[in-house]
Structures are given as structure tokens and as C-alpha cells.
């Protein structure tokens, strides 16, 4: 604990005749030639300290505001000098300003305490701790900045001391907040010290591209008065507005949360580069779309984790909101940071950043969790106390309650529990009946054109096919269907409420819906009568589909899509992709006969147990499609025909049979790409494109990474990495540097084969798919043995230990 050094004792202070006036202080600063930026800092600190002091006095305290003003204005008068506090104190003391001198003397080292009273020194120091340069940023952001400095020096003891000091400062701030009955930030807003975003927004909007991304007010967006909501939260999509608004999951939760009377949920997106630059230049905090509330003022921010390459954008959003990046730096006075979505199944790379993960279906869990938080807020319990409560909910994972312990070789030895009451394993949340999970009928319709401007209705969740590379096919099990009547009702209402002219159905494989034919039988004429085009993605190409596709003319333009995923039957058996060459060529023949002129083929490269023969297979399929076209259209019309072969790079994912498998090395990917290029180039009419290797490698690191990657992320963010999924923004050098700086080898995560008995970072999460099933699937893969779709019969993935699988063995049921 730092002892206060007072240059003047109490008696002297009692004898002090006067205090420096504002103009006197300004003159002192002027005479001493204090630099402008330091002066501005002094003004801001004074404004904050003075406002808090006056508010305290209104609540019965008796602080000397003159002293606060005087000391605040000149506390850094000598900042350019060595030991500036001593120099400054001397200047004040010589003029007979003893009290001010004492404050200046101590302002650098003051320890806050909640035991005694509140002094003028306390308030000047508080002002100093919440202002960065000349801007109010709040205690958490300021403390994070100071801690980061200590972290950079790697001095653990120093860091510990600073952490203690920070804790005291937070406690002190809380004491003040409870006296004045509002947060310090609220007070600053009321006093006009924190600027309203809206003041600057108009001129900012004139300078950016597509300003309507930031204005809100779209059709069906929800406007409430945040002051009247008990819980004010933001749903954050860590990518651009156009991408986020095309994502249905956000609309589902937005709709559900806002149906709750006491909750107001707004939207947050990553600003595009031009807007980000302006926000930083104008020192405006990132704000919510609906009410332009700075995101740091929200109770909860919920991120959706759709792809690993969006993680740096999460950090950027927090940073733009002046919110500390690390969970441990956000003890009080910060929004609770929550994350869910498919990537949350391996939450570990974000464990140091996110406070709470939600695993599994969000519809029921999110509401329960939010209401629990609203209760906690009402009761005024601490963040820690709330987390202890929340971790008891099925689907809630609080990473700070666990700690991995590592072996010498870098693998995890065990994961220990830091809080006894936390569950041993976190079970995923599961919505059993999709008909009870409300699907939005009034989705928001953006003003600007987004990736998809159309009505979207989910027909079912989950997939029974069991492709061994596919995470979605595993983690969304079992298949749960929405009833045909519900789907039709939602489609009609959505179209009526949005005015969209396109409708699409959402699921992992459209034709697998058990009532597909009758459903399409209703939707097709309905859409036709209402000038709406129906779009049906990922159809299984059987006779019925062709009939449908014929009717929906649209398809002819975009081309026919096939995803064989692998080039030979052997490899398709390895990955359990249930499609044969005959399926492909029969469908292609039919398509060409019906006049299609463009075929798209999707493959993945780098599957486990892949050989070059499998690559030859890809080239072979493409050539044979071309040949079929030649044969069928011999003598005419063959000119315009083309085949696009797209190859993505295989990324092993948690909760799949390939979760133990190594990813191909970058060199191997490059070789394979080159090989395929050379094979496909001579084939006239084939366009070959493939995915970037560097991004796929990083994706593999984060997909199966552990907690140590949090530092890599933070470091990459500081190196300027963001929008990593955008080729034009991807900054590989920044990433390379981040791995170097943190001493972490990315290949340990991406290209290393795991043994079955290794403790995997996500082993705490119970995704309901049994590990035995995943192992046996991996073993079968090695021998190229397939496993049937479980609509034929249950193949024992473990799901039915937790719920009933209505589609398990469905084909048998309808036969009998």
C-alpha cells in the first residue's frame, strides 16, 4: 500500500486562505507552457471530478469543489518534467495552495479505499483514471490499458499489484455510484461530458459508403425506450451489416427477446473500414443500430459465432466500444459478453475473452438466461454471483470456472474446476419441438441490398446423413421437423409482412424434409400467384426435383449444383458421402437434356486418407460431364456449356469423426491445387477455383484450438488483423507475427493427429453425440466402410439417450 506523502499538514491547510480560481489556473498553465494536449487532459479530468463532487454534495456530502477544480486543472501542469508531481506540488505550494499541492503530490500513486470517507484527492484521481488523453473512456477501459502495459513487460508481480489497485478503484467507483444512484457514465452523459453519438452521426453518415447500414429504422425493426427496459442488450454479428442481416439466427433471437416485455434487444455489426476509421478519428464509441446507444452501456452483448475467421472482429467490436478485451478486465461496469452459435461447441480459443458461452439451440436458453440476468440486476448481485447461478442452466458454459492443465508436450492433462458448483460437463441446450420454437414472421427488411434479400423459413433442423467431415450434421442432431402447416403459415405471413419477392427454405438438405413433395405442391402455386420466386437450395436431384426445377425457371440461370465432395467412390465411402457416380451422371444427363448449360461441382481437398488417385477422380468427373454434353448436343449448342469445379480445403472440426485427424499441410494443399490445375486446365469448358490455403490453415487452428490461443487472437488483433474471411483484408503477416510473439506453433493445432486418449479442449462440452460413435465412424472411415442414413435405422450416435429421434428409422416406419 502506498503511503500518502503530504507536503503540508492539516494545520497548514486549515490556514490556507484561498483557492486558485479557474482563470488563475489557466494562467498558470499558460505561464508554465504546459503543452496543449496536457491542458486538454487536465480540463477533462476536472470536468469529471467536478461533476462527481457536485453530485455527491447533492447527496449530502461536503466536498470542496474549489479545491477539486483547482487541483484538477493544474494536476499535470509539469507533466513534461521529471517527477512532475513533485514539481507541480511545489508550484502550488509556493503560491500558498497547500491542499491543491498535496493532491498534485499524490495523484500518481493514490490508492482508493472504501473504508474511509471520500476526499477531493479521491475525486481528482478518479477523474484521472477514467479519462484517456482528453476523453472519458470509463474505468474498465482505462484499467485495461494500464494492465496491458504491465502485461507487455511480462512482470507478473507488477501486474498483480495493478490488478489489486484496479479492484480497489472499481470498489470505490461502485461506492460513489450507489451514493449518487446512477453510474458514473450516466452522470457524464447527463452533464454532456460524454457526447451523444447522434450529434456527430449526421456528418459521419455523409462521409461513408452505404450509410443506411448504420441508420436503423428498417421495416420490422423494434423500437423501445431503453430506459424503460429492465434489460438492455445487443445482439452482435461480428461481420458487416450485409452479411449479418442475411443470417436468420439473429432474426430468430431478436424476435424472441423483444417479445419479452422487460427486455430490449438491439443489433450490433462490424462497421466497414470507412466507418471504423471515422469512429476512431472522431472518438465516437461503436453504437447499436436501433437507438445509437454506445455498446459499453448495454447490460449484455451476445455474439454469434458462425465461423472462426470472425473472431478478430469480436475483439474489434469490443475495442471500438471501449470495452476491455479480456473477461478478467471486465469485473464491473461492463456489459456481460456472451457468445453462442456453432463455433461455441469449441469455446476454448475465446475462453479468456467471452464471459459466458451458450451451447446448442438458443431459443429457450437465451430467454431463460436473459431473464435470469434481469433478476440478478434487480437484486444487485455481482458478476461472479450471477455466473455461479447461470452455470447451472443446461447449455451455459462459464470458462472462468475451469482451468486446463497441460502436459510437457503441450497437450492437455486435465481440466480442473475452479468453482465447485460448476457442472462437470456442460450439456448442450436442445429444443425438442421445433413447432414450439417461434420462427419470425416479421423479420427485419434492410434498406440496403444484403447478401440475400428474401424470405427464409426453416423446415427442419439437423441431418441424418452422417457425412463424416460435417460438423453441422452432427451438432444439430436429431432431426426435428417443423410441421408442414406451420411452414406454410410462416411463409405466407413472412411474405405479407416483408413484401419480399423471393422465398427460400432453410435446412441442411432441402429434399430430406419428410413432407417435401406436398409442401412444394402448396408453395409453388402460391408463389407463382404472388409474383414470388421460390428458391430451393441443395436439392437431391431426383425426378421430382427436376420437375420442380423445371417450373422454377430461375435455376437455369444460376446453374445446377452438385457436391460430390470427393473424386472417387472409395473416398466418398471414407467420408460417408452417400452419392454415386451414377447419381451424378444421370442427373447431369437429365439436366443437359432439359437445357441447363452450367454445372457446378463442389469438392473438398485434403480429406483424411486421400490420395492423388482421388484428385484424378475429380478431373475425371469434370471431363465426363463435358463429354456427356458433347454427346447429347452433338452438332449444335455445345458452345456455351461450362463446368465449374470448386475445391475447398478440408478443415477438421470438433464433434465429427475426423476431430482427431491432422489437416493437410499448406505445402500439400498447394501441391494438390497445382496438380488439379494442371489436370483440369487442358479440359475445355472447365473453370477451376480453389480456396485460399492460409485461411483454411488458420481456421483449423481455431476450430480445434485451446485456451492458449486467446493471446494469439489478441496479439493478431493488435497487429491489425480483422475481417479475416475477406480476402482483401486478410493479413497473414499479422497472424504470423502473432504466433511468433506468443511462441505458439499453429501446426500443433492444425496438422497434428490426436490420439483417442488425448484430452480434447472441448471435452467439457457434451454435444450429445457419443464419443464411441465418433471413434467407430473414424475407424470405419479408415476401412472405407459406409454408415447408412439413420432414417433407415438408428446407427447409434448417442442422441437417443437424451431425446427421442422422430426421424430415426423413418423409412422403415413409412414402409410398414
Amino acid at each position, binding site marked *: 500500500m502506498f503511503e500518502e506523502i503530504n507536503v503540508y499538514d492539516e494545520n497548514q491547510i486549515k490556514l490556507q486562505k484561498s483557492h486558485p480560481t479557474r482563470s488563475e489556473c489557466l494562467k498558470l498553465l499558460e505561464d508554465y507552457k504546459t503543452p496543449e494536449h496536457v491542458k486538454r487532459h487536465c480540463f477533462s479530468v476536472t470536468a469529471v471530478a467536478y461533476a462527481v463532487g457536485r453530485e455527491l454534495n447533492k447527496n449530502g456530502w461536503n466536498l470542496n469543489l474549489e479545491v477539486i477544480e483547482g487541483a484538477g486543472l493544474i494536476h499535470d501542469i509539469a507533466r513534461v518534467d521529471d517527477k512532475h508531481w513533485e514539481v507541480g506540488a511545489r508550484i502550488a505550494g509556493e503560491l500558498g495552495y497547500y491542499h491543491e499541492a498535496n493532491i498534485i503530490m499524490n495523484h500518481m500513486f493514490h490508492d482508493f479505499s472504501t473504508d474511509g470517507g471520500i476526499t477531493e484527492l479521491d475525486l481528482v484521481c478518479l477523474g484521472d483514471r477514467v479519462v484517456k488523453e482528453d476523453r472519458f473512456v470509463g474505468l474498465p477501459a482505462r484499467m485495461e490499458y494500464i494492465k496491458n502495459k504491465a502485461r507487455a513487460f511480462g512482470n507478473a508481480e507488477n501486474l498483480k499489484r495493478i490488478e489489486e489497485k484496479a479492484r480497489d478503484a472499481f470498489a470505490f467507483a461502485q461506492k460513489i455510484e450507489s451514493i449518487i444512484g446512477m453510474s458514473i457514465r450516466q452522470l457524464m452523459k447527463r452533464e454532456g461530458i460524454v457526447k451523444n453519438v447522434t450529434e456527430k452521426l449526421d*456528418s459521419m453518415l*455523409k462521409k461513408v459508403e452505404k*450509410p443506411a447500414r448504420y*441508420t436503423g*429504422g428498417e421495416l420490422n425493426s423494434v423500437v423501445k425506450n431503453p430506459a424503460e427496459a429492465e434489460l438492455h442488450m445487443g445482439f452482435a454479428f461480428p461481420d458487416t451489416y450485409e452479411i449479418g442481416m442475411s443470417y436468420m439466427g439473429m432474426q430468430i433471437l431478436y424476435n424472441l427477446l423483444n417479445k419479452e416485455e422487460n427486455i430490449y434487444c438491439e443489433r450490433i455489426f462490424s462497421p466497414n473500414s470507412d466507418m471504423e476509421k471515422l469512429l476512431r478519428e472522431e472518438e465516437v464509441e461503436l453504437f447499436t443500430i436501433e437507438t445509437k446507444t454506445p455498446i459499453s452501456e448495454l447490460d449484455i452483448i451476445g455474439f454469434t459465432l458462425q465461423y472462426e475467421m470472425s473472431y478478430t472482429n469480436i475483439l474489434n467490436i469490443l475495442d471500438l466500444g471501449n470495452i476491455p478485451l479480456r473477461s478478467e478486465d471486465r469485473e464491473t461496469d461492463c456489459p456481460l459478453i456472451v457468445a453462442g452459435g456453432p463455433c461455441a461447441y469449441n469455446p476454448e480459443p475465446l475462453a479468456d475473452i467471452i464471459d459466458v458461452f451458450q451451447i446448442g439451440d438458443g431459443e429457450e436458453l437465451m430467454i431463460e438466461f436473459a431473464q435470469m440476468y434481469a433478476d440478478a440486476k434487480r437484486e444487485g448481485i455481482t458478476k461472479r454471483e450471477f455466473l455461479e447461478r447461470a452455470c447451472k442452466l443446461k447449455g451455459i458454459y462459464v470458462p472462468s470456472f475451469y482451468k486446463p492443465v497441460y502436459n510437457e508436450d503441450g497437450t492437455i492433462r486435465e481440466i480442473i474446476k475452479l468453482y465447485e458448483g460448476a457442472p462437470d460437463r456442460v450439456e448442450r441446450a436442445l429444443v425438442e419441438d421445433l413447432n414450439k420454437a417461434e420462427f419470425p414472421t416479421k423479420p427485419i427488411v434492410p*434498406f440496403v441490398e444484403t447478401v440475400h434479400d428474401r424470405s427464409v423459413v426453416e423446415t427442419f433442423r439437423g441431418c441424418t446423413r452422417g457425412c463424416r467431415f460435417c460438423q453441422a450434421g452432427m451438432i444439430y442432431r436429431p432431426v426435428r421437423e417443423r410441421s408442414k402447416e406451420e411452414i406454410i403459415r410462416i411463409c405466407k405471413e413472412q411474405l405479407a409482412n416483408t413484401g419480399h419477392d423471393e422465398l427460400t427454405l432453410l435446412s441442411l438438405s432441402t429434399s430430406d424434409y419428410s413432407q417435401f413433395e406436398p409442401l412444394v405442391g402448396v408453395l409453388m402455386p402460391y408463389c407463382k400467384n404472388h409474383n414470388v420466386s421460390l428458391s430451393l437450395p441443395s436439392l437431391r436431384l431426383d425426378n421430382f426435383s427436376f420437375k420442380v426445377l423445371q417450373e422454377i425457371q430461375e435455376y437455369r440461370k444460376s446453374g445446377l449444383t452438385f457436391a460430390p465432395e470427393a473424386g472417387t467412390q472409395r473416398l466418398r465411402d471414407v467420408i460417408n458421402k452417400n452419392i454415386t457416380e451414377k447419381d451424378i451422371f444421370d442427373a447431369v444427363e437429365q439436366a443437359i437434356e432439359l437445357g441447363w448449360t452450367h454445372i457446378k461441382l463442389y469438392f473438398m481437398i485434403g480429406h483424411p486418407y486421400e490420395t492423388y488417385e482421388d484428385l484424378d477422380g475429380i478431373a475425371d468427373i469434370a471431363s465426363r460431364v463435358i463429354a456427356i454434353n458433347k454427346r447429347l448436343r452433338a452438332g449444335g449448342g455445345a458452345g456455351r456449356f461450362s463446368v465449374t469445379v470448386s475445391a475447398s480445403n478440408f478443415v477438421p472440426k470438433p464433434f465429427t469423426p475426423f476431430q482427431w485427424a491432422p489437416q493437410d499441410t499448406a505445402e500439400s494443399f498447394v501441391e494438390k491445387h497445382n496438380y488439379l490445375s494442371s489436370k483440369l486446365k487442358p479440359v475445355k469448358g472447365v473453370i477451376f477455383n480453389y480456396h485460399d490455403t492460409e485461411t483454411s490453415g488458420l481456421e483449423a487452428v481455431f476450430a480445434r484450438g485451446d485456451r492458449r490461443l486467446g493471446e494469439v487472437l489478441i496479439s493478431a488483433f493488435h497487429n491489425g488483423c480483422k475481417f479475416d474471411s475477406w480476402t482483401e483484408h486478410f493479413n497473414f503477416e499479422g497472424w504470423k507475427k502473432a504466433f511468433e510473439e506468443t511462441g505458439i506453433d499453429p501446426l500443433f493445432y492444425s496438422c497434428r493427429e490426436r490420439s483417442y486418449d488425448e484430452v480434447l479442449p472441448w471435452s467439457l462440452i457434451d454435444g450429445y453425440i457419443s464419443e464411441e460413435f465418433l471413434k467407430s465412424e473414424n475407424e470405419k472411415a479408415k476401412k472405407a466402410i459406409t454408415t447408412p442414413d439413420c432414417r433407415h435405422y438408428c446407427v447409434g450416435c448417442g442422441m437417443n439417450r437424451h431425446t427421442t429421434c422422430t426421424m430415426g428409422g423413418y423409412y422403415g416406419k413409412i414402409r410398414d
Partner: protein
Amino acid sequence: MARFVIDYKKYGYIKYTSHLDMLRLFKRAFKRAGIELEYSNGFNPHPKMGFALPLSLGYESLCEMVEFETEQKITKEEVAERLKKIMPEGLEITGCRILPTEGKSLAALVDKASYEIILPSDFEGMAECDFAGLSENFMRQNEIIVMKLSKKDKRGRRTEKPLDIRRMLHSFEISSKGGHQVISMTADCGSNSNLSPELVIQAFLKFAKLEIPRHEIDVKRIGIEFVK
């Protein structure tokens, strides 16, 4: 078949919605309002609907017009009523009129447009300006030459060309309104001769030797005149 024109105002945040996005917005609005637009014939049928005059991004307007055709039996009051209910904030439907079915589109008949250009309440050099004198002298010039960017040529290049805007500018006055200096101007508009307020702003600032950044200036369209 009937031909209608809807009058509306555009202000507030929705002024940041672009012309193309407004087209999409109206298309969807008609759908939601249950008003079936007539479609053009041809290979790529599109709804018979169009704005009288596109409004630049960021401009407010008191006098926007969109015309459309429909086979539906519906009164103009009903059209206005239905649309009023569903329009977003800042898009205020002020009326609906019936147009003769024959004749050119409104867009083809636009002749002049009037704007208010609102300068910031305070900016370096503004206090010393005699705006009344400036505006008079500005208009007294025989020619006002500005550099105008051409449309993209075949190679996608744009070139700057000098252009005399004086003959296209019919009135230009400055008055003080609500603490702001406000320019009121009327200029040629339409397919024959068209002068964008942007060029007028550019020319006047240069003339007045003011360096006000564009984002400090607001523009509002206040009237459209058609060929008689």
C-alpha cells in the same frame, strides 16, 4: 388500367437510403399494401413504376413523386391510406393523384427543380461574408465555369471537363433561416439539360472563398417543375 402518382416527403435517417434502394423499398411496399403493379411485357418483365426524379443520397425532399400503373380497381385515397400505414419513419406519404393513362412518364417531363442548400450555422470565414451581396454578384456573372466529371467511357475512365452552369441556373438567393444561411436555387433538370446542386455548391463556395467541407452542408429538394 389506371395510372397513379404518389407524393411523399423524405427526411430524417431515411435520406441515407439510395435511389436504387428506394425502388426496392417501394416495390416491397406495394406488395405489402396489396397493390398489384402492372408488369411490362418482354423477356425480362419489370413492374411499371418509376420516380419522377432520382434524389441523391443524403438529400431531404418535400416533393418526391413515384408513379405506377395497376389494373386493380382502387381509389387514390385508398392507395394513399394503405401506403401511409406501412411506410418507415421519415417517408411521409402526402397524397396520391390520378394521371391520364396516355402520355409521357413524369421522368420524361421534368424541367426544373428547386433546392435549399443549408450551410452550417458557423464556419471559418462565414462571419465575414456578406451573403446577400455575394449571391447577387454570383448571379451577375456571365458565365460560371465548373469542372465536371464525365460519365464513364467505354474503358471505365472519367474525364474532367469545363462546363458553364450559369445558363442552367435560374435563381439563386441566400437568406437567413433558423440561424443558418440558406441558399434557395432553381435549376434545369431532366433529360435535356440538367444541373446538379452539387456543382452549384462547388461553384459558390469557390466564389465566396469558403472552404466548408461538403459533409457540413445539407440539401433539401423543395420543388419539381414539369414541362407544360
